[in-house]
């Protein structure tokens, strides 16, 4: 049992995180409005469609937010649980291109549909027909944020991102092995470094493919020329080159040292391409180019505990894969030595 506890723990964490990631309902939300363009200075009747909402007559409050100004609805007609019609006068002078819709309904708290309306005529701020302030109500209960464009795919956070965390953990282990090689020259450490790179590449490939599928569903393309995406792809190539370089040398001692030196450089490049560069350029990817990773989506912190459990669990699974390969490599060395003798 002594050597097994962390493997069981990893499986338990991944299982718990995956089940929660798939089972947790999405929060009630406004998913559609019609029309989606505002004509300032006129009355509007806006049809809204809710998801898992329970609209009750006289208990639905609606506002439009534009550049920090709140425009209150005059009247909200409730049609059924998920359909309502908002009547409002939209004043002239709204400053921003896009307006958010804020709807407060029983049990759902205040739901915000980001960039719900396009505002074709811009001004320097409305002076009348705006509310002084607006009360935001928080929803109770455990549910994932329900964001337009993302919808159900927000669950992927708990599958796609842990792949990259695990990749980075394995590459850090590989770096430690390589530093040990440079100090001792031991072949076992070289084999450990290779095993860690092999395992990290598995997670990198799973990260690339899952990210690509997610990009198709939210950005509309399998691949975009984004700093984060290309950085991740280049990282994979750098580590593939490590395997090619190491495989091209036949002398075991020379091979170990050469591969170790390259691996140190590879690690620095990985940090540069995945962590540093994407933060400095414009990017669609959350967590880069000034985009927040969590705070934008996870207002009530429902994603965080699931995500952290998934990351820890997948790191444990990654460590297990590495552990198996490392032990196998140790046996292979013994076998090769036996054959030479």
């Amino acid at each position: 049992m002594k050597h097994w506890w962390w493997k069981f723990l990893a499986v338990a964490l991944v299982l718990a995180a995956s089940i929660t990631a798939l089972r947790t309902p999405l929060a009630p939300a406004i998913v559609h409005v019609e029309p989606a363009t505002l004509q300032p200075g006129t009355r509007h009747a806006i049809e809204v469609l809710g998801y898992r909402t329970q609209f009750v007559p006289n208990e639905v409050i609606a506002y439009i937010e534009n550049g920090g100004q709140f425009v209150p609805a005059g009247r909200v007609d409730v049609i059924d649980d998920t359909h309502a019609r908002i009547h409002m006068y939209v004043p002239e002078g709204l400053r921003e291109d896009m307006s958010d819709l804020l709807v407060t309904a029983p049990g759902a708290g205040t739901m915000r549909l980001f960039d719900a309306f396009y505002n074709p005529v811009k001004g320097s701020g409305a002076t009348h027909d705006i509310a002084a302030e607006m009360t935001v109500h928080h929803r109770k209960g455990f549910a994932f944020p329900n964001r337009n464009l993302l919808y159900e795919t927000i669950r992927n956070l708990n599958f796609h991102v842990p792949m990259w965390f695990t990749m980075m953990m394995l590459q850090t282990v590989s770096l430690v092995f390589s530093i040990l090689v440079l100090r001792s020259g031991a072949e076992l450490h070289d084999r450990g470094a290779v095993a860690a790179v092999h395992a990290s590449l598995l997670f990198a490939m799973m990260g690339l493919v899952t990210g690509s599928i997610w990009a198709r569903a939210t950005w509309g393309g399998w691949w975009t020329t984004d700093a984060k995406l290309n950085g991740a792809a280049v990282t994979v190539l750098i580590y593939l080159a490590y395997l090619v370089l190491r495989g091209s040398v036949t002398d075991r001692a020379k091979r170990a040292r050469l591969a170790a030196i390259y691996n140190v450089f590879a690690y620095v490049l990985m940090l540069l391409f995945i962590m540093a560069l994407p933060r400095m350029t414009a990017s669609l990817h959350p967590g880069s180019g000034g985009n927040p990773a969590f705070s934008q989506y996870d207002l009530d912190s429902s994603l965080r505990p699931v995500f952290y459990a998934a990351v820890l669990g997948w790191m444990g699974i990654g460590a297990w894969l590495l552990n198996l390969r490392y032990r196998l490599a140790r046996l292979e060395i013994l076998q090769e030595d036996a054959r030479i003798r």
Partner: protein
Amino acid sequence: MHASAKLFLLTALVAAPNALLAQGNPDWLVDTLYGSGKINTVIAVVAVILLGLAFWLYRLDRRIARMENHHRP
């Protein structure tokens, strides 16, 4: 395992979820999996991860087989 037993197991594995779904969806399933769009993206992502792990097992299996062959007299 006999070929017929394998075939039966495979059929059972494929057919079981469909049989369960046909009995009417429990509420949480409607709410979480079929409620609104893009859930197939999540399913594809989970499938990719499972296939990746299977690929790793396959590679490990081959390596172990190679070692076993060396030891065979």
